[in-house]
């Protein structure tokens, strides 16, 4: 028997992804030169299913190391006359909602749990044509509700990151629609998630 406690490769992969995301806009600008144009503020709404993998086992008996949930969030981004835009990101993530029966020697009890999060992040994204890649840096307010014979609620703030890539088509009137892929990573807790989403974007202000 041996003792093993960490999942360092996942953190490494996410760090590499972020470095690539951060490097890409700089590279694009070096290629294209600065394109002076309209400043704008855009808002994006996204929603979709979420698949999560919980990396830091061992968990309690009956708890799986993966789960299906959902994610929805909004971004407000300010794009100056550069490829890179900055803004804020928040939303709601349901990582897992589960219930099962726990059978003790004397009784059986239905146990249900729900783990959710509200991301609070600074978002940085690079837009090139109809493509958009970016990353959210900040943290998550994690909330849990656990119910057996009693219901307990608790919450905790933890650092995390989020990476997203999307393609959006103009549908008229300053509106855009398209698919987006989001990757969440809560490094401390060891939750890695991927979410295919539908994104609706609107140019709020242009000047």
């Amino acid at each position, binding site marked *: *028997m*041996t*003792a*093993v*406690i*960490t*999942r*360092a490769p996942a*953190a490494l992969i*996410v*760090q590499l992804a*972020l*470095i690539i995301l*951060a*490097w890409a*806009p*700089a590279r694009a*600008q070096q290629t294209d030169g600065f394109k002076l144009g309209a400043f704008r503020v855009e808002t994006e709404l996204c929603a979709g299913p979420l698949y999560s993998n*919980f990396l*830091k*086992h*061992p*968990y*309690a008996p009956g*708890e799986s190391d993966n789960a299906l949930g959902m994610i929805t969030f909004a971004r407000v981004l300010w794009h100056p006359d*550069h490829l*890179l835009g900055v803004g804020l990101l928040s939303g709601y993530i349901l990582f*897992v909602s*589960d219930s099962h029966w*726990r059978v003790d020697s004397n009784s059986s009890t239905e*146990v249900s*749990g*729900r*783990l959710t999060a509200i991301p609070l992040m600074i978002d*940085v994204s690079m837009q090139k044509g109809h493509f958009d890649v970016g*990353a959210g*840096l*900040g*943290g998550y307010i*994690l909330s*849990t*509700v*656990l119910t*057996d*014979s*009693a219901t*307990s*609620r*608790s*919450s*905790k703030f933890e*650092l*995390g*990151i989020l990476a997203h890539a999307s393609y959006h088509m103009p549908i008229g009137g300053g509106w855009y629609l398209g698919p987006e892929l989001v990757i969440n*990573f809560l*490094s*401390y*807790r*060891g939750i890695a998630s991927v979410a295919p989403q539908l994104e609706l974007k609107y140019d709020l202000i242009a000047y």
Partner: protein
Amino acid sequence: MRTTVVLLVVAAALVAGCISQLNPVSMPLTVSPPPGMPIDTAARPIVNGVYVRDNGDEIFGDTIVVRWVHDRLCFYTGTQVVFAETAGALAGDTARFDGYYRFVRSVETGSVAMTILPEEGGIALRTGSASAGVTVHIVINGSTSITYHRVAPLAQSATPFHIIGHRAGGRNSERLGRSENSIAMARFSEILGCTGVETDIHVTRDGELIIFHDETFSPRTVSSMYVLGNVSDFTLRQIRNDARLLFGEPIPTVEEFLNAIIDSTTLELVWLDVKAPSVVEKIINAQRVANAHARNNGRNLKVYFGVPSQEVLDAYRAAPSANTEPVLCELAPDIARSLPTCKIWAPRWTNGLQADNVRAMQQAGYEVLTWTLDSPEYMTEFLNGDVYNGILTNYPSMLAGLYYARH
């Protein structure tokens, strides 16, 4: 723009990686003796002692302390945080031991094979007769050889000296294959050289006492999908069923933890670090039950109620059962003296040696311990002159290496 990109990369690295993940350690959790006859219990102390290096690799330094802990032969060094655990048997007149070593402050670990040849202590181990000398031949990782010979018995004090392991013997950051404040760690603490352990008490939402250090459940201490945030937000049943300590153990109740120490170790001291002033009365009652259980089983063990702060002191003084069980006080000497059942005064080591205060307290009948001391230089300073009665440390194996070899 480039500055922005650089800042982003740095920020990303900080968010994703600054909460460093400790490298895993592949350390055996059990050892098995080589084939042969068991070594008689009465003959074992022949091997206990301080050994110096004759030749071979310098990995463990020039001096090691070899000591039996139950049926395991262990060794420690005082210069680095190293311990080895082996199990042995006799093949004819040759004693052989197999096990592992571990550098606690790194991931370094490996196999240890020790041999005591017939004329170098092997016959004495078989017959139980006195031996002129003992020499151990150590092979680590199957190739590197070192030879040590015994130069002195284990140093002892005129009064008992307590080697006390922090958080039941070791923290999670030491990656010892057992979680801090677990029953498994308390049992393992003796292999690390402990004669006592310090542990922490918190209270659950339904008022139950658990052994746990932090106020919150975090990935540093527990693995759980749903149990996170304040300890006091969850019931004992939820904590027991839906959370595991970092190495998979359930979070123990105070009763389970103390019973395990009484029933399955030879530890002599348990220091309860009280982190829940609201349930002082309940803690004293658990302490009373444990001390009675130890007495009834003929165990030389005392469970002490730790008073670490004014808040706990006030709650203790207001408790109906105050002054009925032994107390360890970390506050000023006059406060310790004001508590009728205080038996131990425990100043922090950063306050200095305080030799006059220590002697005065000892003359008044108190034992004096200091905490939490991890530096070999300061350990040596606090061991000099046999002034203190014990030290609380995160590195009990290093303290054992220094204490038993201090002559």
